[in-house]
């Protein structure tokens, strides 16, 4: 018991941080709540370092301490800290400011539960915990748009969640246990395994905003504060995608999950970028872009179990994706939500312009940036798993994505008289987040070895 708890110290620290931030809010001290939340998450990140290289389970196999779950902490906890700083700009001075910080911590705890899930119950727990916290976050501005977005989000989540729980009952029936590891032994009931898989794809697919379970995402991102949109695009998504990897590694290979994932990858990437091509709102464009990026993650998931590169590629791409996507959202948070608001930004604020260009071409996957290394490894994993055609489709989509992201770059360098007047305007935190993300995007590209040394050692 003591051993199990000691391995969960980072999660416990996040929980205490969330409670601490909530307590500070009750004392009407929102700045203290922010400080506790950011500080607590950074401490939890530090507490996760020693766990690198561990590969074990706790509580009877129900929660995994492995490369995926440890790296999820090392990636998502700092990412949440950056989102907290962005959120400060959005919610400063509002009535229940501190609850936002607390809810962000709770949602991250849910994402961590997903990323280390070794038991079907953790899938449910993680989905519900992130779900409940993020519904409230989306609805927080109390505007009509936010309420509508939260409502859509909630209804969508309830239905998909119900389907997932229903489907998981088949797995329980077939394996006689909720442990995912027991699924490997199920041989005589393939239909039950497949029904359960479909349900999990629905439940986690919504959270990771895979097409066709993505409909909530653009609306929710648009209605929510930009900081919450940034958060939704990174933390719950990476948690859900890592949960996919945790699930499929125990599935019998002949249950046909890999082609299903490959098909989802193709649909998600292609639809995401095609829809992004016609957006005029920068937040919606980034929402569809983040849908498409989920499709790239699936390349790594397809290769789980067949290629040794699968898990490293997922981890490196998750780190790069968190950095570049948060960076792009931070610039949008500073400049404004429409593409017009970005016009002339590159001329008025050259360094912010350079940073945004770096984020966007990293999202395309151009070297030597983080997005390139991540996608390169994902392609390698897919080819290694004999899914060369999938890598070809992904590469074709990368070209499409260039057209998408240039829709932001081109107006940034247009001559506009009033350009950049608003940036950053509302606070220096946006600048801090932008620079941290900028350095991380470059560093992950140039020093990927620092990450790879962990999972591959």
């Amino acid at each position: 018991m003591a051993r199990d708890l000691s391995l969960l110290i980072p999660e416990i620290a996040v929980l205490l941080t969330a409670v601490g931030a909530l307590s500070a809010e009750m004392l009407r001290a929102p700045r203290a709540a922010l400080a506790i939340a950011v500080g607590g998450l950074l401490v939890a990140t530090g507490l996760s370092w020693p766990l690198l290289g561990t590969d074990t389970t706790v509580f009877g196999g129900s929660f995994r301490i492995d490369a995926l779950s440890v790296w999820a902490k090392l990636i998502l906890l700092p990412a949440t800290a950056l989102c907290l700083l962005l959120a400060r700009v959005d919610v400063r001075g509002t009535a229940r400011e501190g609850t936002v910080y607390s809810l962000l911590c709770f949602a991250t705890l849910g994402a961590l539960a997903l990323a280390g899930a070794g038991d079907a119950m953790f899938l449910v727990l993680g989905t519900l915990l992130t779900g409940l916290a993020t519904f409230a976050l989306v609805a927080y501005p109390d505007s009509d748009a936010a309420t509508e977005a939260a409502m859509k989000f909630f209804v969508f989540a309830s239905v998909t969640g119900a389907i997932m729980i229903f489907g998981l009952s088949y797995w329980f029936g077939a394996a006689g246990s909720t442990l995912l590891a027991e699924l490997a032994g199920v041989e005589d009931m393939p239909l039950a395994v497949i029904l359960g898989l479909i349900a999990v794809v629905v439940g986690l697919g919504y959270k990771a905003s895979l097409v066709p379970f993505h409909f909530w995402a653009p609306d929710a991102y648009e209605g929510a504060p930009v900081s919450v949109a940034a958060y939704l695009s990174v933390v719950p998504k990476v948690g859900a995608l890592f949960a996919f990897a945790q699930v499929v590694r125990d599935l019998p290979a002949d249950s046909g999950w890999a082609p299903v994932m490959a098909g989802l990858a193709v649909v998600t990437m292609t639809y995401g970028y095609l829809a992004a091509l016609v957006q005029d709102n920068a937040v919606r464009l980034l929402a569809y872009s983040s849908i498409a990026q989920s499709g790239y993650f699936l390349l790594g998931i397809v290769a789980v179990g067949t290629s040794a590169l699968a898990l490293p590629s997922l981890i490196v791409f998750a780190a790069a994706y968190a950095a570049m996507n948060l960076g792009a959202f931070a610039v949008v948070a500073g400049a404004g939500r429409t593409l017009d608001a970005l016009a002339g930004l590159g001329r008025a604020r050259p360094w912010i312009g350079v940073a945004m260009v770096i984020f966007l071409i990293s999202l395309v996957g151009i070297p030597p940036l983080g997005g390139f290394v991540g996608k390169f490894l994902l392609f390698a994993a897919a080819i290694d798993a004999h899914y060369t055609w999938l890598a070809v489709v992904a590469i074709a989509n990368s070209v499409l994505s260039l057209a998408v992201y240039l829709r932001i770059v081109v107006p940034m360098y247009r001559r506009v008289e009033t350009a950049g007047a608003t940036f950053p305007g509302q606070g220096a935190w946006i600048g801090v987040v932008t620079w941290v993300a900028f350095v991380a995007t470059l560093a992950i590209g140039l020093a990927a070895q620092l990450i790879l040394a962990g999972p591959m050692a």
Partner: protein
Amino acid sequence: MPPIVSITLFLPLAGALAILAWPKAPARAVHGIGIAAAAGTLIGALAMWGRGVSAAGFAQVEQIEWIPSIGAAYRVGVDGISLPLVLLTAVLFLLAFVYAANLRQQPRAFVALGLLLETAAIGTFTALDAILFYVFFEVSLVSMYFMIAGWGHEERQRAALMFFLYTLLGSLPLLLAILGLYLGSPEPSFDMRAWIADPPLAGAAATWALVAMLITFAVKIPAIPVHTWLPAAHVQAPTVGSVILAGVMLKFGTYGLVRFALQMTPDAFRDAGLIILALGVVSALYGAFAALAQTDLKRLVAYTSINHMGYVIVGVAVAALALDPGVRAIALDGAVLQMVSHGLVTGALFFLVGMLQDRTHTREMGEFGGLLKTVPALGWSFVLAAFASLGLPGLAHFPAEFQVFLATLRVEPVAVIVVLGIAITAGVYLKALRETFLGEDRPRWQGLPDLSLREWLALAPLLALTVAVGVAPSWLLDVIHRTTAALAL
């Protein structure tokens, strides 16, 4: 021994960072830093030339670990194929910065991008690690995109977008081929030397890798039918952009064709040799005929590039098909020399067209006339460069094309039909000279200034080198031949 290759490679990048770190730098200082960094790079390239190449593979190799988990490392070095291209790159960039020294529209960004592009270009030619190669290959793309989009002419946004989409679509298949070679190699490594010494793929896998690489390099060269981005990009690019694009970046394609396609999938390349040869012949002839139909002087030069690069493809394909190592060496010598000659001659031609456009604000040949009398120095320079471009003996293209044709005649005599291209380009340039520089001089061009000192400085070295390579090509050929003669395919 100081790491000269790495110093030469990163000196331009250091210059770019210095410019970025000095936000209020006056334009003169910015151009000064650009020229100084490029001059230093040229000195580095000359030092590399002094240290020479070895017949047994790559020389001056420098390496450090980068991503050991997947076998990627920082590895650079040169052989007789890459070293002349490094020198060409260093020369052209220095002259480009000299030419651009009067630019006053956002000089900081322009010079910084140019220096980044120079590092990317030298890196592409010196990289001995496939990931490193790909990194430099793509970085050059991004810098060139911003150069065209930021400082180009009327329709620059469209041309820049077309250039970026086209070449990104083109370069991604190379990534697939690199991954295929990586997964096929016995030890997980991206070391290009290992792939060349012992090609990791065979059979259908090698053929697919070759197809992917041919797509990439055909777009970059550019060859028929994926050449359409080139005239658009050239016409809209600023003069310096055109010089670099034609003089240096097109060579990425032909260099990759030799380094990757020919050396890493040699058997598949030999099997497809006739198809690639046909591609080269068609490209060369198409480029020449298309140039004949142009009225825009810059487009005309752009199309003759397709023609000249077609000869390079012919040379490489003939080298693959040749059974006799001696003939193969002749073909490759010609192909590599042709890359250098094209860089010198087309660089000069694009400078000259840019100088004309700066003065007259038009590129339409029909609007010129009699300029030889108005601007004699510019005119005679153009005559010299045009004669070089059409392959006149004694000038740079002649020894290169002669060797390519000689080897072609020995290996696949039918393909010598490509010689027709020379006759057509002769027509192209004679027509251009007649319309632009001869004939009645027009009153509206009276009083045009002739070449300034800055323009002379940019132009004269290229013309001198054009003559030097044409009259005495052996100083270049000796270096090239050391590698091509030892090449085992």
